[in-house]
């Protein structure tokens, strides 16, 4: 066998690999998150157009917060300052807080970039980044159902908590004081090197506006 033959053979194999990868890419992703399993990676642009990958934050605790500012359940936690408190509290402890909006363009919770920046100011929202998932692909990948729907990922990229923000499904800010916050319990446990007590719960809120 000589060079030409080998080169054509390699080209053939190359085409094969290309065709195969194309085909693999065609497969739609299924919601494939599970507690205590690696959280799937994703890449989304933030409000400033900067791309964030989950894998960029390996080595840090990451919180994913599905958000829709106009949803009354989200308002409950923003008008009371509860969500902002969690955001600043944990980002100070070097955790990364990613708010993700999976509302489709034209649906509630989706804003043009300029409006969004203003809205974030009004809400006094201080996540590490606000990520825009217009296509809903990351939302569907994580099986995000409600706003809010919370996910806590540890330093190794393993999903440690998924579900509701706390144990009181309601829209009343007055309920927050008497509620157990699952996200802060999970993060506090992880930071203290302890196992997470409540690893999952049924999220409550408005449906994600895919």
């Amino acid at each position, binding site marked *: 066998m000589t060079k030409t033959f080998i080169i054509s053979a390699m080209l053939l194999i190359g085409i094969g690999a290309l065709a195969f990868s194309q*085909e693999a890419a065609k497969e739609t992703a299924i919601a494939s998150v599970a507690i205590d399993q690696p959280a799937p990676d994703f890449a989304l642009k933030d409000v400033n157009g900067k791309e964030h990958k989950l894998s960029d934050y390996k080595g840090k605790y990451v919180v994913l917060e599905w958000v829709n500012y106009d949803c009354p359940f989200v308002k409950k936690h923003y008008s009371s300052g509860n969500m902002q408190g969690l955001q600043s509290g944990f980002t100070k402890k070097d955790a990364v807080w990613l708010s993700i909006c999976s509302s489709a363009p034209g649906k509630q919770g989706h804003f043009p970039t300029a409006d969004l920046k203003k809205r974030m100011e009004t809400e006094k929202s201080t996540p590490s980044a606000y990520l825009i998932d217009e296509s809903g692909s990351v939302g569907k990948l994580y099986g995000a159902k409600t706003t809010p729907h919370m996910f806590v990922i540890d330093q190794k990229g393993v999903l440690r908590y998924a579900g509701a923000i706390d144990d009181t499904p309601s829209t009343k800010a007055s309920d927050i004081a008497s509620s157990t916050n699952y996200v802060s319990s999970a993060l506090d446990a992880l930071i203290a090197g302890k196992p997470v007590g409540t690893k999952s719960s049924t999220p*409550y809120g408005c*449906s994600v506006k*895919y």
Partner: protein
Amino acid sequence: MKKRMWYSCIAFAMVLVSAALLRAEPVHRDHVSIELVSDQSAARPGDTVTVGLKIQLEDEWHVYWTNPGDAGLAPRVKWNLPPGFVASPLQFPVPKRIPAGPLVSFGYDKELLLLSDIVIPSDFIPDSLFSFNAEVDWLVCKVECIPGDAVLSLMVPIVENGLAEATAWDEQFRLVRTKQAVEDTNWSVTASASKTNLQLIFTSKSERSSTIPSDLFFFPTKKGIIDNSAAQVLAKKERGFELTIPLNSMNTDTLTEISGLLVAENQWANEGTRTGLKFSAPATMLSSPTPIAFAAVEITWWQAILFAFVGGLILNLMPCVLPVLSIKVLSFVQQAGEGRKQILQHNAVFTLGVLVSFWILAAGLLLLRAGGEQLGWGFQLQSPAFIIILSSFMFLMALNLLGVFEVGTSLTGIGGNSRRSGLLGSFIAGVTATVVATPCTAPFMGSALGYSLTQPALISLAIFTALGLGMSAPYVILTSTPWLLRFVPKPGRWMETLKHVMGFLLMATVVWLVWVLSIQAGSDSILLLLATLLVLGLCAWILGRWGGYAVEQGKRVTAITAAVALALASVSLASFNVTPADSVASGMTQADGLTWEPFSPERVTELNGQGRPLLIDFTAAWCLSCKVNERVAFGSLDVQGKLSSLSVVTMKADWTSRDERITKALAEFGRNSVPLYVLYTGKTGQSPIVLPELLTPGIVIEALNKLEG
């Protein structure tokens, strides 16, 4: 007494104006109007008054059931009642499914009447006017959601006797009650849950067979346990039916009791106006099968490495690898004339080729799995495009061996250093051998590979390295032992004959690949592949006729360029245009005198629930050892007789094309490759038996004997 008279007067006046009082004006909020109504104009101490919370919704707006499904919140009421009064929880009618994109909520549209029975204590002083006061809050959603709340009140006179009578609401209340889901002792319900599915089996106790609606849906009382948007599969049975409900993968609670409503979208045909069956049943948790291996048991990492090495050795004997190795054998013969150093070099490079491709395959598999893809060993042969490339390559090699075109002699001028390209050839032979060999998981290898993928990357790579070393070991040993090489005959005319024979062997491999493709992508793809092979034949012929040195350089270069371009174009065209067939091998297949059911996890759960023994054959068209096992073991009349006498259900999980359900099922047994044979004994509490990967009729019968014991 005076006081009492006074109360009586008021009571009387109240009764007169009761119509106005019993129906306090509805409260209007965003998209909702809500009011409190009663079924009686007055009540006596000790009576039960039913109070209704009537919610009227604008079109397309919803309120929610107690389990709101994927999103939402049920209306709540807080009664402010005097001491001694007891209000029952709100009675919710049968909910509807409300889809929103990929999500599904459970709730109501248009109007809703929520009832509560309030018991008036018998020592309550009559003739007083009693006001029901309720703090209500709710969530109403169309796409966006708006919470609302209101304080509603309703006056009901409490009188001593005679004056209580039904209001205009009584009729509506009765209607709502008939539409409430009810418990029915005629149906017994058993619930069992696996990791992925909940199975409800409804058995009728009466002889009379009732018509089962085809549009049943189970609404669980508890939130978050089922996959709300997934289809629930109904299967009718002799005395009832069963419903298989996919569970929510995020649910981590153990299901000990299942309760909820079974609702028919339309009515239950011959059961009057019934719309829902209310039930509660203890759930048995079918622990995910911890299979007992029939031959091998749990393995440690060093055992895995050892098995991988032995598996690699045996890979050489696999029918998939033989044709490729024939090329290796040919090069052996050619090398026999060369110096020992060169031979060793060639073999080292061959080994490297094998190892590198194993590493790439393993790394690719690990990466893709980390990304959430459901893949298994041999995944490249699940791609129709890859099959086309591979068969094209094999076909060209065959034509080359048959002498249609001679790249070996004619192009050395361009080739430059012939020894280096010879080494590259050895490398390619190693790569090709590996790529073709992977789908044939030899014995010992299945568990080692399955194990390796659950291990840290370093151990996985060690296992794959052992596999590659095992595969190339025979050649290294053969060539590093000179006295063995003496048995290889000297080059001569016989070599030409051997080359041709090997060429036909490769053609046979192509025939196998064509068959695999026909199963994967249907008959159209075969036309595509055969046409491609025809074009390749033409290219080879052009190369043979005008590519040789006898032809002047200009023509020669044109011919080579044209042939290579045409070949590449046709192959890439074909591989990009081939699409997998929609559904493959659905329905029962009858072969070997056995009836094979297609694989379905729901059916497995069902059969386990019934306690029927079940044999699952995980197979693929491209897995030759599977085909051999099927012929040898399942083709045996003794095995067939035994299977039917024990009434074992046989099921075939065909993994020829990608199938995530099968990949998942394999993973449950710690495997990612075929063949795999699993025998469920059908006895409760017994783990399924995993049969070895090389079957004989004896092994199968021995395993089946355990069913009788």
